[in-house]
């Protein structure tokens, strides 16, 4: 691809320091926004860019910003969601570690656009090294006059603080994050009211992902229109993909949205193919919460079209034959991996992370974990498989927050596409303890829509 918008300078020695960052064009967006633009014109640029939330939901950022209520006499807050906890996702860690000033610059521009005078970066508690890095970078920026009172003589004041979490995936949900920021248990709130109306301390609040905020910098530097020219359809710009699992070159890659999935997996410019000469069996394309797909359906849509790394293409086919871009946490499974074991592992994760408010999630996640453990350890019954689908349907859509859905989708999709493997665990329990099911028909050929539809 042409120029990387976020990671262009990531390998410049010292880019994590203010001086080197500034020498390489850093903080130009702050100068441009505060000296030559109005808050509303900054919001317009972001709208024009087509930027969508990079945390996982993909909601248009400009639109989210425009929802912010602006009542007289009430403070507004911008909170950056750096609670990165979606299994498979590690791009925010990468960005904050190596180029923290990009996030800080984005926070200043975004806070200006939203009229926030105090902003917070909520970082998951385990990322203590990153918290230290950000605190140091904030001190450098303040020292250089880019934070504090009357920034660059513009009359705009901004204080920026880092707030640690305490180890809770649920605090990546924006209202649970706000609860945590208020010093409480991370229980999501019922929406409406949305944070744009009533958020932190009941004040209008916008919560945005790290990468979303970082993207504001190139959008202001080059203009929203330029940003919108990159990408594919309604998936504009670039995305940081976190590639993990059985790949030759796992890591964080900045891609232009619309890149073919096959190229992303196999080309030397990106993941370099499957490790140890193995064959690809399955992919979870956007973090553990999105449907898992067998190799044949991740490389091509059900219509035989090459699948692209974009919101639209990955969702092609809905949940029946498609998945989602989500957080871009791209996990690759080779032919030796056990889908049943992995599904149990993910169900244990969601059960552990459920905040416990909603009965369908609190009880359903625990139930799914138990049944999956039974299947994986050779004690499952055939009826367990439909039971899992049934429980997942009873959780989906019946909870205050999307964690319930996120717990349901991996189980439902694993059974939808890999039912044979689950059944084999029931009919051949001894064998299942000794070796894995293997690649079977999961790579080739492409299934027929009627086959998949009948699996439900």
């Amino acid at each position, binding site marked *: 691809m042409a120029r990387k918008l976020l990671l262009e300078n990531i390998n410049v020695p010292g880019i994590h320091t203010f001086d080197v960052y500034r020498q390489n064009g850093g903080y130009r967006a702050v100068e441009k926004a505060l000296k030559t633009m109005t808050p509303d014109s900054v919001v317009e640029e972001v709208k024009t860019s087509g930027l969508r939330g990079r945390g996982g939901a993909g909601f248009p950022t400009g639109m989210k910003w425009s929802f912010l209520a602006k009542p007289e006499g009430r403070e507004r807050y911008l909170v950056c969601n750096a609670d990165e906890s979606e*299994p498979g996702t*590690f791009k925010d*860690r990468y960005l904050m570690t190596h180029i923290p000033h990009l996030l800080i610059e984005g926070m200043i521009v975004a806070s200006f656009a939203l009229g926030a005078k105090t902003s917070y970066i909520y970082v998951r508690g385990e990322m203590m*090294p990153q918290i230290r890095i950000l605190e140091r970078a904030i001190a450098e920026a303040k020292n250089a006059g880019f934070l504090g009172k009357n920034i660059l003589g513009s009359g705009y004041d901004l204080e920026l603080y880092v707030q640690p979490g*305490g180890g809770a995936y649920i605090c990546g949900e924006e209202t649970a994050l706000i609860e945590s920021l208020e010093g409480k248990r991370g229980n999501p709130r019922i929406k409406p009211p949305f944070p744009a109306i009533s958020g932190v301390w009941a004040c209008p609040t916008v919560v945005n992902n790290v990468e979303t905020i970082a993207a504001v910098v190139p959008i202001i530097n080059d203009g929203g229109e330029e940003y919108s020219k990159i990408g594919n359809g309604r998936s504009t710009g670039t995305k940081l993909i976190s590639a993990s*699992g059985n790949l030759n070159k796992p890591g964080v890659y900045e891609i232009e949205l619309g890149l073919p999935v096959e190229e992303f997996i196999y080309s030397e410019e990106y993941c370099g193919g499957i490790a140890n000469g193995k064959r690809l069996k399955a992919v*979870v394309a956007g973090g553990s919460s999105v449907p898992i797909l067998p190799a044949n359906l991740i490389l091509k849509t059900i219509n035989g079209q090459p699948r692209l790394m974009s919101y639209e293409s990955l969702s092609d086919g809905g949940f029946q034959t498609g998945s989602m871009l989500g957080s871009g946490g791209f*996990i690759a*499974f080779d032919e030796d991996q056990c889908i049943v074991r992995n599904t149990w*592992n993910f169900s244990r994760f969601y059960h552990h992370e459920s905040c416990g408010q909603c009965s369908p999630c609190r009880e359903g996640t625990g139930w799914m974990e138990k049944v999956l453990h039974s299947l994986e350890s050779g004690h499952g019954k055939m009826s367990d498989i439909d039971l899992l689908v049934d429980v997942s349907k009873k959780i989906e859509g019946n909870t205050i927050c999307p964690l319930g859905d996120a717990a349901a989708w991996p189980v439902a999709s694993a059974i939808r596409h890999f039912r044979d493997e689950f059944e084999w665990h029931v009919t051949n329990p001894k064998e299942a303890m000794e070796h894995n099911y293997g690649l079977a028909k999961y790579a080739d050929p492409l299934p027929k829509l009627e086959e998949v539809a009948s699996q439900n």
Partner: protein
Amino acid sequence: MLSVTEHKEIEFSADLISKFEEIVTRYPEGKQKSALLPVLHLVQAEYGWVSPEAMEKVAEFLQIQAIEVYEVATFYTMFFLRPQGKFVLEVCRTGPCCLVGAEKIMTHIEKTLGVKEGEVTADGNFSWRGVECLAACGMAPVLQIGPEYTFYENLTEESVDKLIESLKNKI
């Protein structure tokens, strides 16, 4: 769950209190409860765990009820409610790490230290546990050690052995 120990009076040092006070300045007047998580992290860094006595003192400082501290300390997984080893090895146990050998690493740690998950070695120096996704999946397997959460990536049985040896030398 909350550990009921013999009641030991504790006093926070002046240094710790001044750190708490700095944190409180980050929030609007009257919203000092927002300092709770950062304060609990400092308490755990100081004492190695969060005791009921410490929680009561935190409640006093923040002018909130003790229950408001208990409910937070019991919700967030990073806070230890009983004393741990001097070094607590926390290994990621979620899907992507397991695809590349995290479970073998945990088995190796259990064998090497000689204690099960959550237990402390007889000399009081080590404990370990599996934790959920640490957002480092591309460098898996990984582990972290508090209170600064120093991070160790691309683990092998050899690198784990080296790490444990180097920690033993620090005692």
